[in-house]
């Protein structure tokens, strides 16, 4: 999958969790928590959504690398290439 496809998937999953969020204005390098009103349940649902969409396993320990939009895409790409 290309970087853009991964990014689109991430945004789709985010949109299901926080429909009212303005995803277009998402800053790539700022933590999700600081841009969107997400709590631990939302983050869990995002992880479950990505796992379902991309088939990648995301251990709890790796949550910190998903903190920002770009970090998340890079992490996912890394997982997919392996």
């Amino acid at each position, binding site marked *: 999958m290309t970087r853009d496809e991964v990014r689109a998937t991430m945004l789709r999953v985010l949109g299901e969790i926080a429909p009212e969020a303005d995803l277009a204005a998402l800053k790539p390098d700022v933590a999700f928590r600081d841009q969107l*009103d997400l709590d631990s349940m939302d983050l869990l*649902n995002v992880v479950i959504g990505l796992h379902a969409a991309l088939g990648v396993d995301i251990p*709890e320990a790796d949550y910190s690398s998903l903190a920002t939009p770009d970090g998340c895409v890079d992490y996912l790409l890394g997982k997919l290439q392996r």
Partner: protein
Amino acid sequence: MPILTVDMQAGTLTAWRKRAGDAIKRGEIIAEVETDKGLIDVEVFTTGVIESILVQAGETVPTGTVLAIIREEAGAPVSVTPSTPVQPVPVTPPTARPAPAPPRLVAEVTGRVRISPLAKKVAAELGVDPASVRGTGPGGAVTREDIERAAATRPQAPARPAEAPDRQARMRQLIGAAMARSKREIPHYYLGTTIDMSQAMTWLTEENLKRPVPERLLAGVLLIKATALALREVPELNAVWRGTEAAPSPAIHIGVAISLRGGGLVAPALHDADRRSLGDLMTGLRDLVRRARSGGLRSSELSDPTITVTSLGEQGVETVFGIIYPPQVAIVGFGKVVERPWVVEGRIEARPVLAATLSADHRVSDGHRGGLFLAAVDRLLQEPERL
């Protein structure tokens, strides 16, 4: 002591006309008794000899008390008293049950909501549409409480921008009314304690490693299960106020406070939280959050909780003292899990801890019982594997 007047319960034996050993004949006056109507002679109905006097002159005794023992004369015409034992048992008719009430005609209410005038007035004030409220009054009629409960817990439809502002104000108003009433009517008492979460957090991490992603657990689920099991030990906190006293609820439905996008709060019920596994609770919790935030909650889920748990740890709050949701009688608060110095066998260690609080209705329980409850939650969280 004979019954001598219509409603005589007791009598004072003022004088004996005969003494022990005297012979007496049926129909003779044997004594004199003071009743509410005055002095009345006591007639004897057996013929024989007085063996012993049991009640002395001047004594007041209830009717039916044996005054003297009489040995009936063998040959005398036995006064054929009916099968009455010496102790006269007044023949009481069957216990007086109220007669079956005549069937009461009630007009068929068609084409309009069955609602009391008071409830209609309050519904207008609180902007609640009576037609949407399930009535608990006579014949399913909607009552004031029904309206107020609906108002306080009405699900917040996702804030559509167009009507967001007044929907927000309306929401604020409804929660305000319920909270004001709670503060006004419920004498709250507050207890807090700090719980060492190290066991729980360690166990959670190991557990999530074993679980596939969709079945992963959040710390909140442990807190909910611990609360539910602790309520089994202090059931009076798991009750509903019925206007004059609390009715303990057989089931434990934990209302989970869920904040909504753009403000507002609902606390739908996780039914039978004490009997469900952590995984099942997690699935339930995720479903409640999803539907709360998409406006898909059922009104029964909103009116079913027997107690509420609120957890503001996410927002960085360390200690939260909640306000009880009427008609519940308690609310449990959990703060953020934070690293704190913790004395372990004289040494200081860093330990993940959180502040657990209880606000409870002093009409129903007191500090002592509240304290037992928090201690139980703490104890249960030290053995997470058994939750």
